[in-house]
C-alpha cells in the first residue's frame, strides 16, 4: 500500500439497533472478524436503519472500511488524545449562546 493510496474493504456485517424502553443502543459487528484501526472510516451500506419505538432490528448488511494511510494512522494516534473531552459527560451540549 502506498503512502497516499487508500485501501477499501467490503465486509459483511451485522447491525443491531434497539429502540426500546429497556435499552437504546446500536452496534455494528464485522462478521469476518475485520478490525478497525485509528483513522479508518466505516460506512454501512443501505438505507438508514430506523427502528420504531419498541423495536429491535438485527440486519445483515455490508460495509466499506476505508483504511487510513500509514500517515493518517500515525496522525490519528498522535493527536487523537486531544479530543479527550468528548469522553466526558457534562449534562449539556457545548452550545453557550441561546
Amino acid at each position: 500500500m502506498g503512502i497516499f493510496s487508500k485501501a477499501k474493504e467490503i465486509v459483511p456485517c451485522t447491525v443491531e439497533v434497539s429502540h426500546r424502553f429497556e435499552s437504546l443502543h446500536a452496534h455494528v459487528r464485522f462478521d469476518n472478524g475485520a478490525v478497525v484501526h485509528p483513522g479508518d472510516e466505516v460506512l454501512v451500506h443501505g438505507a438508514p436503519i430506523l427502528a420504531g419505538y419498541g423495536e429491535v432490528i438485527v440486519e445483515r448488511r455490508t460495509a466499506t472500511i476505508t483504511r487510513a494511510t500509514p500517515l493518517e494512522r500515525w496522525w490519528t494516534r498522535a493527536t487523537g488524545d486531544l479530543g479527550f473531552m468528548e469522553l466526558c459527560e457534562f449534562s449539556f451540549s457545548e452550545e453557550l449562546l441561546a
Partner: protein
Amino acid sequence: MKDLTQDTTRDTTQDTTHGELHSELAGTFDTTAMATETTLLNPRFYTTDFDEMDRIDVTPVRAEWDALLAQMKSDPNKGHFKKTEAWDKVDWDGMDPALRTEFIDFLVSSCTAEFSGCVLYKEMKRRGTNADICELFNYMARDEARHAGFINDALREAGVAVNLGFLTKAKKYTYFRPKFIYYATYLSEKIGYARYITIYRHLEAHPEQRFHPIFKWFREWCNDEFSHGEAFALLMRTDPKLTTSFTNRLWIKFFLVAVYSTMWVRDHARKDFHAALGVDIDWYDQEVYRKTSAIAKQVFPMEIDIDHKAWIPNLNRMNAAMIDMEKGKRKGGLSGRVAHATASARAMLAFARLYLIPVIRSTPPANVRLEPTY
C-alpha cells in the same frame, strides 16, 4: 447518500433523507405537535490500544475486583428504570420556553453521553480477549443502554424522537490511549455521580422545585455511575505508574482542571434550568467539585484547591472568554475571526492560571474501594 447494495428488504419504504435529519432543537421546538422533532444521535467512535488493555492483570486488586463485578452482575438497578406512578404528568405546554430548551438540551446531551458510553464499552468488550475486562465492559454497556432508553422515553414524552440512523453514515474512528480513557471516563462517571446526587438531595429538601419526574430517579441512577467509576479506579490501581509518575500526575491535574472548568462554563450557560431547580450555579458547581475531589482521592494523589482565591475568578474569566469565542465564531468574517482568536488567547491564559494553582497533595488509601455515601 450513496446507493449501495442492501441485503434485506426492510426499510425500503423509508425515505433516505431521514438520515439527513439533524438536531436543531433550540427555538424550533413545537409543543402543539408532538413527536415532530427528530434529533439524530451522533455518537463518536473510538479505538484504543486493545492489546494493552488485554494485558491488564487485575491480580493486585483481585478481591475488590471480584466483589465489584459480582455486584454489577447481580444488577441491583434492574428494576429501577421503570416508570411507576411516581412518574408525574409533565406539563410540557406550560413550561417556560427558555427552560424547555435548556431541559431538552440536558436530556439530549445526557442521552448522547449514555449512548456513546455504550458504544465505547461495547467495542472494548468485543475487541478484547481479557475475560475480566470483557465482563466489566459488558455490564457497563448494559447500564448505559438502559439509561439511554430511559432518557429517550422522557424525550418521547416531550415530543422529541431520537433517530439512530447514524450507522449508515460514514464514521471515522479516532484514537485514545487507554490511560486517557481511564482518566476521562473515571472522572466523568464520578462527576456524573456527584452532579446527580447533589441535585437529588437538593430536590429532596425542595420538592416543589422538581419540575420533571426524572430527577426522582437520580439516586439509584447515580449509583451505576458510581460503580462504573469504581471499576476504572481499580483498573488504574493495577498499574501504579498511571497515578504516580511525574508525567501522569501532570496529566491528571490537566484532566481535573479541564473537566472542572468545562463544567463551570456549560452550567453557567443554563441559567433557566438551574433557576427552575432553585440551584445557585456557583454553589452547585463548587459542591460537585468538592464531592468529586473527596471521592477521587481514592486513586488520584491530589485534589484541586477549589477554595484558592484565584480559582473562581479565573473560572469566571474563562467563562467570559468562551462566550466571546462563540460570539466571534457566530459573527464570522475577518472581525469575527479576530475576536475569536483574541478570546481564545484569554481562555488559554485563564486555563493556565487555573492550572498553576498548587494542588493539595494526598496519598490514596491502601484499599481503593468506596461506597456512595452522599
